[in-house]
C-alpha cells in the first residue's frame, strides 16, 4: 500500500500541551491531538474535518514543524520526525522545502510592510542564498502568473488586494520553494462564496500541474466533498472516522460524522431533511469525558461507551472508532 509516492506517513501522532492552572492549581495536560495515523500520496488530497477545537489546526502545526509532536512518528517526504530526535539545521531546511502551509486568514498572513515581490522572494532568499536576485525576481514573477495574478502586482503592497487575491499570494508564497506537500489550513473559510470556488479551482489546477499532496483542513463539508480524495473526521483530538471521501460521505458510520453531514445544506428542496441535532457543547479538552469522547452528545451511547474508548476498526469500506457504528 505504501509506495514511493507516499509523502506523509503519520503513526500515532500526538501533541499535548501543558497548561498551568494558576499558582496552586498544578499543571494539567491538554491532549490537542492524540494518536492520529494517516498517510498521504503525491497528487491526492486528505481532508481533515471537525468542529473548532477538535485538533485540526494542531495537526497542521505539527505537520509543518511549527511544533514538534509529543509522541508518535511522522515521516515527511522520507525524513523521520519525532519528538525526541531533534533535527539538524540542514535537515530542517530540506524539510521546509518540501512542506509549506497556507493560512486561513489572508489579511493576517501577509506582512503589511513588504511588497508582494519581497513576500514571494523571502523563502528563496532565506533557503537558497545562492540564487541570484534577478533569478529570484524571475521565479517570483512566474509564480505570480501561475496563481493568476498580473505582473504589475509585483511591486504592490498587501493592503491593495482583496481577500481572494491575497489568498492567491499566500498560495504563491507557499509554492516558491517547490514543496511537494501543501498544508491548507481552512484556506477558503475567510472568503466570499464566489471567491471560494475560484481559489478552490486554482488549488485543483495547481495540484494537477505540480502533482502536489494536499492536507486540506476544513469545517465546511461541501468544500471537502469537492476537494477530497480521503477524509479524516476528528473529534476532540481523536480520529473518529477515516476513509475514502466517497465511502465516508455515502455511508458514514460514526454518529458524529452523520450528524456533521446532516448539518450541511443540500441544494435540493424536494429532498427531505433529516437533521440530527447534537445536544450539548463540545467538552473541554482539559477534562474530556471518560470512555468515548463523543458519548455525552451521542444518541446511541450505551454503558460501554462511557467506560472505555473505542479503537479504530475496519468496518468494510473504511475505518471508524465506534462500538455501535451505523449501517444503512
Amino acid at each position, binding site marked *: 500500500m505504501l509506495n514511493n509516492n507516499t509523502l506523509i506517513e503519520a503513526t500515532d501522532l500526538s501533541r499535548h500541551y501543558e497548561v498551568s492552572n494558576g499558582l496552586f492549581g498544578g499543571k494539567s495536560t491538554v491532549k490537542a491531538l492524540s494518536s492520529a495515523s494517516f498517510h498521504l500520496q503525491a497528487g491526492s488530497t486528505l481532508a481533515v474535518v471537525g468542529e473548532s477545537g477538535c485538533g485540526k489546526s494542531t495537526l497542521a502545526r505539527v505537520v*509543518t*514543524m*511549527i511544533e514538534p509532536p509529543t509522541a508518535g512518528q511522522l515521516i515527511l517526504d522520507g525524513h523521520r520526525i519525532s519528538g525526541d530526535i531533534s533535527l539538524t539545521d540542514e535537515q*530542517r*531546511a530540506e524539510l*521546509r522545502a518540501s512542506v*509549506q*502551509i497556507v*493560512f*486561513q*486568514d489572508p489579511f*493576517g*498572513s*501577509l*506582512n*503589511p*510592510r513588504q511588497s508582494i515581490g519581497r513576500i514571494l522572494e*523571502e*523563502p528563496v532568499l*532565506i*533557503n537558497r542564498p545562492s540564487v541570484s536576485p534577478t533569478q529570484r525576481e524571475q521565479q517570483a514573477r512566474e509564480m505570480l502568473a501561475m*496563481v*493568476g*495574478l*498580473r505582473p504589475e502586482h509585483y511591486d504592490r*503592497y498587501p*493592503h*491593495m*488586494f*482583496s481577500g*481572494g*487575491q491575497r489568498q*492567491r499570494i*499566500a498560495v504563491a*508564497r507557499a509554492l516558491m*520553494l517547490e514543496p511537494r506537500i501543501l498544508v491548507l489550513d481552512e484556506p477558503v473559510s475567510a472568503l466570499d462564496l*464566489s*471567491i471560494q470556488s*475560484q481559489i478552490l*479551482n*486554482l488549488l*485543483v*489546477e495547481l495540484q*494537477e500541474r505540480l502533482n502536489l499532496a494536499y492536507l486540506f483542513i476544513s469545517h465546511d463539508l461541501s468544500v471537502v466533498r*469537492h476537494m477530497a480524495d480521503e477524509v479524516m473526521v476528528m473529534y476532540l483530538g481523536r480520529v473518529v472516522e477515516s476513509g475514502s471521501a466517497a465511502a465516508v460521505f455515502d455511508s458514514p458510520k460514526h454518529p458524529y460524522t452523520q450528524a456533521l453531514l446532516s448539518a450541511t445544506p443540500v441544494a435540493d428542496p424536494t429532498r427531505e431533511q433529516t437533521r440530527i441535532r447534537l445536544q450539548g457543547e463540545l467538552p473541554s479538552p482539559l477534562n474530556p469525558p471518560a470512555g468515548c469522547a463523543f458519548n455525552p452528545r451521542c444518541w446511541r451511547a450505551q454503558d460501554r461507551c462511557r467506560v472505555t474508548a473505542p479503537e479504530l476498526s475496519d468496518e468494510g469500506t473504511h475505518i471508524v472508532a465506534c462500538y455501535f457504528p451505523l449501517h444503512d
Partner: protein
Amino acid sequence: MASTDATTDSSLPEGSKRDSMLPDRLRPSPFKEFWGYFCENRGAIVGLFVFVAFILIALFADVLAPHSATEQYRDALLQPPAWQDGGSTRFLLGTDAVGRDMLSRLIYGARYSFFIGVIVVVISAGTGVLIGLLAGFARGWVDTLIMRLMDVLLAFPSLLLALVMVAILGPSLINAMIAIGIVLQPHYVRLTRAAVMQELPKDYVTSARVVGASRLRLMFVTVLPNCLAPIIVQAALSFSTAILDAAALGFLGLGAQPPTPEWGTMLADAREFVLRAWWVVTFPGLAILINVLAINLMGDGLRDALDPKLKRS
C-alpha cells in the same frame, strides 16, 4: 474537474473588474495616505512648520546670528529690546547682564536644543527598542527581569532620577543627555514589547518561521517594521521631553555649563534679573515653550496619522 474553468479563471483574477474601476491613483501609497491624515490636523502642520524653522535656524546659526554667542559688549549691559526705551537696533532682543546679545544666544541655543533632542532620542529609542524586542521575543524569566527593572526605573520621578545620575556622573551637557536618555528609555521598552507581543501570534510571523527565517531576521525584518508607528510617535514626543528636561537640568546648574548658550542655562543665569530686566528671562522661556509646543503638536498629528484605530476607512 473544472480545470478548464480554472484556467479561464486564473487569466482573469477576481477583483480585476474592481481594478479597472479603481485605478492606481485612487489607491494611495502608504506615505501619501499618511500625509493625507497628517494634513487633516492643523495643529500638526503648524507644529511641523515651526519645527522645520527651528531646524533651519539651528543649521544656519552662523549666518543668521548678528553677533557671537559669547562675546560680551561691556558698553551695553542689560540693554532692553529694540522697541523699548533705551533699546537699539544693534541688539534686537536686548543684552544680558554681561552684555551678550540675546538674539544671537537664542539662535545658537537652538543648536543645543536640537542636539540634545537628537542624541537623547537616539540613546533612549535605540537601547529601548532593542531591549523591548529582546523582552518580547524571549518571554519567560528574561522578560520578567527586564520588565521589573524598567518598572523600578519608571517608579522614580524622572527629573529626580536624572538629577541623581548627573550628580554621580558630574554636571555637564553630555552627562545630562545620557541621564535623560536612560530616564526616557523604559517607555520605549514597554511600547516595543507590547507591540511585539501583539504582532507575534499573527500568521505572517508564523509563515516567516515556516520558511525558516532566523531569530534576528524575524526580529528586525519581519516584526520590527510593523511595530514602528507607536515608536515614531514616542520618539517625537520624547524629543520635546528631552529638551524640557535638559533645560530643567540646565536651570538647576547640572546641565550645560555657562557660558554655553543653552536655553535652560540662560534662564538660570538670568534669575536675579527677573524683576529688573524682563527680557533676559522671557525670551529663553518663550523659546523653550514654542519649541516644545510645536513638537508636541506634531507628535499628536503623527499619532493620529499612524494609529490605525483612529483611521476611518
